């Protein structure tokens, strides 16, 4: 398949999906996940809200330490308590608040309704269990089948993720497989139980660049075939552009901008998103210095009073250091947490947008 055909099928599928807008599947409201450590409390996730519709695809984007992985782990409730604490908020999945569920009910949802693909395929498989046993373990938990039926499902799942000779692979051990192959196994595990939501936490970070595209295409294909929703956690905006429909950008434990991929990537309304976009190396900027967002993520114990991005923001003014903006609604599903979008400062916004088109030329 050539690149062009991949692109068109993807966009047409996206259009179809958006035409038949599903109900909200996952609704995270004002989630707060804190960690109580020796030096104080780290508010890793501090009031994060977003939602995904049935069959929808959302990416959580942000740099290291912005709380995107903790958000994913909170949804699965894989946070160790203590030191972790769910200090507030709701995670409504299919009408049920996951934070209020008992462990036994939660176990049915984990793996069965929500499956997770982890960052490190090299260490996410148990070294002493054969690949087949590991997939079958999940299948036996969530399907009413005997061992033989589970083996058949596991073998089929491996075939579905493009593993050659699956009847032999099910008997192999993780150390016999390459990183890309192991990530395929993880994806097979995730899809074997027909989940309604797949959470992929940086699924390609640990892989070779050549394998990354294959794995992304695979995740997308699996997601489209099963009709599951996808929550993709990544720091790679290139991955975002190719894989999802909607984006939520996170910074310092909060969502700072949401919208469709086109809106956010082409017309960022928050300088942080813009900084991320500008730091992507590209052919057009050949020979120039790579641009980077100056400074670093604020110390979690000494967060700025105003906008959390203010100390690093090239467009900041007094308002920004005095108070933090709410997520300002710019359209249906389009928000940005930046004073630039407040009507009072529209001349500054004009300036910001002018500098953007100028910078792009």
């Amino acid at each position: 398949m050539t690149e062009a055909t991949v692109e068109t099928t993807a966009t047409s599928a996206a259009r179809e999906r958006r035409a038949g807008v599903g109900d909200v599947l996952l609704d995270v409201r004002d989630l707060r996940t804190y960690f109580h450590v020796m030096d104080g409390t780290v508010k890793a996730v501090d009031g994060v809200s977003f939602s995904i519709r049935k069959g929808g695809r959302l990416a959580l984007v942000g740099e290291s330490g912005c709380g995107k992985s903790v958000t994913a782990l909170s949804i699965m409730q894989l946070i160790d308590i203590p030191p972790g604490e769910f200090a507030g908020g709701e995670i409504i999945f299919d009408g049920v608040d996951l934070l209020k569920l008992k462990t036994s009910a939660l176990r049915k949802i984990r793996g069965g309704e929500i499956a997770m693909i982890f960052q490190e395929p090299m260490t996410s498989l148990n070294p002493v269990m054969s690949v087949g046993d590991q997939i079958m373990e999940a299948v036996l938990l969530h399907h009413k089948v005997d061992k033989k039926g589970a083996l058949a499902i596991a073998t089929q799942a491996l075939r579905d993720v493009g593993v050659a000779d699956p009847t032999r692979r099910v008997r192999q051990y993780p150390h016999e497989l390459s990183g890309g192959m192991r990530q395929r196994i993880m994806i097979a595990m995730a899809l074997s139980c027909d989940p309604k939501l797949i959470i992929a936490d940086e699924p390609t970070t640990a892989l070779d660049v050549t394998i990354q595209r294959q794995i992304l295409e695979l995740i997308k294909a699996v997601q489209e075939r099963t009709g599951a929703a996808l929550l993709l956690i990544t720091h790679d905006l290139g991955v975002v552009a190719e894989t999802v429909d909607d984006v939520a950008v996170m910074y310092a434990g909060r969502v700072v901008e949401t919208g469709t991929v086109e809106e956010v990537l082409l017309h960022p309304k928050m300088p942080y998103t813009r900084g991320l976009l500008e730091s992507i190396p590209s052919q057009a900027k050949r020979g120039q210095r790579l641009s980077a967002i100056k400074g670093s993520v604020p110390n979690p114990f000494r967060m700025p009073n105003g906008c959390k991005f203010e100390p690093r923001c090239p467009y900041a003014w007094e308002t920004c250091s005095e108070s933090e903006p709410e997520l300002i609604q710019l359209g249906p599903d389009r928000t940005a947490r930046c004073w630039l979008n407040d009507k009072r400062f529209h001349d500054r916004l004009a300036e910001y947008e002018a500098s953007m088109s100028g910078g792009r030329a």
Partner: protein
Amino acid sequence: MAEIIGPIDLPPATPADQPDYDVQLESLNQWQIAWRRFKRHRMALIGSSMFFGMVIIGLIGPLIFQYDPYKIPVPEVRVNAGRPPSLAHLFGETGRLQRDVLTLVINRIRYSLLIGVIASAIGAIVGTIVGGVAGFFGGWTDTILMRIVDALLSLPLLFVILAFSQFIGQGAASWVTITIIFGLFGWLGIARLVRAVILSLREADYVDAARAAGVSDRRIIFRHLIPNSLSPIIVATTLGVAGVIIGEAFVSFLGFGVDPLTPTLGNILSGSLEFISQGNWWWAFFPGASIVVIVLGINFMGDGLRDALDPRSKI
């Protein structure tokens, strides 16, 4: 200068007659790999032959040997101090009752080994469960279980065992009682070891992955964590067998162990004590040497297992 050579005929990457290695390779699990490494370990092989040699002697020896261990011999010449090794009695005869030392040793190896193996197995099972639970759940569970272990470890174990066997068996416990007593006190070290291993393993990504797949805590402990920590458990248990055999011999030697009717190697030593000063060395030497061979064999084997099971060691 060398002239430029034209295109060289390179052999094809994989000659047609050679097998495709990926297809030919069989899948080995960690035990098959460990077994291969164990087979290459010379000391391990020597140790295993010593140990399993003694096991075979203990099992088969009594069947083919001529003297009845439970019959008191009626010798033609009575010698109170016993008699040194001879052709009729290869390991000599004991003092007082003049029994055949070889017969005694062969018949008693079995009980020493049984006590050692069963007691260590009990210790390994109890220790693995306690350590696994403590390490996995942490917090209060861990604190309480480990303080119990600390408390028990601070007791002078030997005296406790002496007191126990005295109390339970009125001075002459059956070998089952002694086994259970050693088992009940043998799990402490294993529990600590397993806890430490589980503490580090539970942070592994595959534990999170299993949890994310909906696997229960109990299954994570027993199907994921303990199989991954079996290597140190196996090594410690193997070495533990040696410890129990020595301990049992010691307790029996002091006269607090197994009653003389189901005797062990330690029992023979106990009887030999008062005759050593009369030059009656064979009565003590042969049972003592059997203990040494068994224990040394186990220790070599344990070292070999440690090397074979550790993926980082090079054999």
